[in-house]
């Protein structure tokens, strides 16, 4: 009993990345209330001001950018863009990939051949090339970034779901549920999916971090979210031009990016360890 109590604070402490992620998500959700200013409001009288600058009662806690916008407000709103894009693309690619992988492994035969060949093809195209081509066709923009990311990442889930389903499909309980008359969708949704969701969650968590980086990268290259929408990648891109004179423009979005990706990766690793132990 006392041992369990003694361990608790340590286990809780080990989950600090989850706390960090929760805080960042809260920032994203509460952005309009948390941000001290309108992230898009320009003030040409307050351009490139250093952190702590105050003008007519407005405090620029993290400084202002080249158009006089509040960096703090833009970083907070940028969390929205990052997280919404990452979550949407993870969901979209996850659903597609898992469905493809499970069907291929469960139905076998030509379905398996066709689907998994497609996975191999997609995996062999460099992601950035695929992204550039897709943006060239679809044009840049918020929704298109999500589509591009989903298009490049679904094979990863398909691979994992495929392997996991293959390992399960011959297990007696799956066979038995078929012998008891369960249909293919029922077997997949009720008997297989719950039993492979753990490894998939690990992948999704790690992918979330990757998607945040990917979105920032695309926006950095001008292929992603378009101005004036606040995106960390785009902020890094402009900030780069002023790095010698106004370091804060690039530094703070960079730091936010780092914390978000770090928390996702640490959580993913931890989940992976937990599942590894459970097996």
């Amino acid at each position: 009993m006392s041992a369990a109590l003694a361990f608790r604070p340590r286990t809780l402490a080990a989950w600090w990345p989850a706390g960090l992620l929760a805080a960042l998500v809260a920032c994203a959700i509460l952005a309009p209330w948390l941000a001290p200013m309108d992230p898009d409001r320009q003030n040409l009288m307050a351009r490139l001001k250093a952190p702590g600058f105050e003008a007519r009662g407005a405090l620029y806690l993290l400084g202002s950018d080249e158009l006089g916008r509040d960096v703090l407000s833009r970083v907070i709103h940028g969390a929205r863009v990052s997280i919404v894009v990452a979550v949407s693309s993870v969901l979209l690619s996850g659903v597609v990939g898992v469905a493809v992988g499970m069907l291929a492994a469960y139905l076998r035969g030509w379905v398996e051949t066709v689907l998994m060949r497609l996975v191999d093809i997609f995996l062999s195209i460099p992601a950035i090339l695929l992204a550039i081509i897709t943006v060239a066709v679809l044009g840049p923009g918020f929704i298109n970034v999500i589509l591009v990311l989903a298009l490049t990442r679904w094979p990863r889930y398909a691979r994992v779901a495929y392997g996991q389903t293959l390992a399960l499909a011959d297990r007696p309980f799956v066979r038995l549920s078929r012998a008891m008359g369960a249909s293919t969708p029922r077997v997949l949704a009720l008997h297989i999916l719950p039993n492979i969701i753990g490894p998939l969650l690990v992948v999704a968590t790690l992918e979330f971090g990757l998607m945040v980086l990917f979105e920032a990268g695309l926006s950095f290259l001008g292929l992603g979210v378009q101005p004036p929408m606040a995106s960390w990648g785009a902020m890094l891109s402009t900030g780069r031009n002023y790095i010698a004179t106004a370091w804060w423009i690039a530094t703070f979005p960079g730091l936010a990016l780092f914390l978000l990706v770090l928390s996702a990766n640490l959580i993913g690793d931890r989940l992976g360890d937990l599942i590894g132990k459970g097996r």
Partner: protein
Amino acid sequence: MSLLDLSDLAIQAGELSLVDGVTLDVHPGEIVALVGESGSGKSLTALSIVDLLGEGLRVTRGSRRFDGADLTPKRLRKLRGQDIAMIFQEPVSSLNPLMPVGAQVAESLIVHGTASESEAQSAAIDMLRRVGIPDPDRRATQLPAELSGGMCQRVMIAAALISRPRLLIADEPTTALDVTIQAQILSLIRDLTREQGTAVLLITHDMGVVAEMADRVCVMYGGRVVEQGAVHDLFAAPRHPYTDMLLRTMPRPDDPPKEPLFAIKGSVPGPRDWPSGCRFRSRCPRADAACTERPPLQGDGHRAACFHPMRPT
């Protein structure tokens, strides 16, 4: 009329013959044992009935009939879980580790839309009680890991019998269980199926189980039926040398304990090493030149496939 009728069934993995000409029937309400050493093709025969042979395995010959009509995939979709139910050997891994056992017992009722969600749930609890699980209301909400192996096997029996199937296929239902629990599970299967008039195809490698449970028996060796007949006929007067050996491996209560158990000489050859003609030839003390041909199943009622049977047909 027979309920299940397999005729000249053959199963192959690619070119490799695994089951070759199995003929077998099960009448309504009776218990037929399918017996043979491991690797003789019993499980494949059973899985082919419900069309659940794994990847790479095909039925290449013969017919499978249920209730007088061919078992087509379309018909099987309705029959599986409703008229034909199955129990596997591994009780724990045969249950979904993440689903409460009550829901798993109710599964076939829900799948076939026989009962509403809540009716199925209370039917499942009833069924759990019938298979002798104490405190079924509480047990129904538990996961398989919270139950013992014997309990899990009871859960599987409950799941199989809840829809009152006409045929139960039980593939070595007690092999993975403790000896003390084996007898309980077997009598449970016998009593419940008798009660609801369910026929049983009981797969086992244990002649003791056959003697205790079955009305008729079908002995397999090397993917073929070597002898079949009523249990008392076959036990009293086995004709095939393999059956004779199997019966002599049975421990008898009156055996002097110092006498070592008779064991069949040599090991079962794998499907790649089966000899031509009679597949038992490589281990048979009576084998001679005639046995290089395939012996036909001969006899009326009690039948054996041997050129030099232990007793005349």
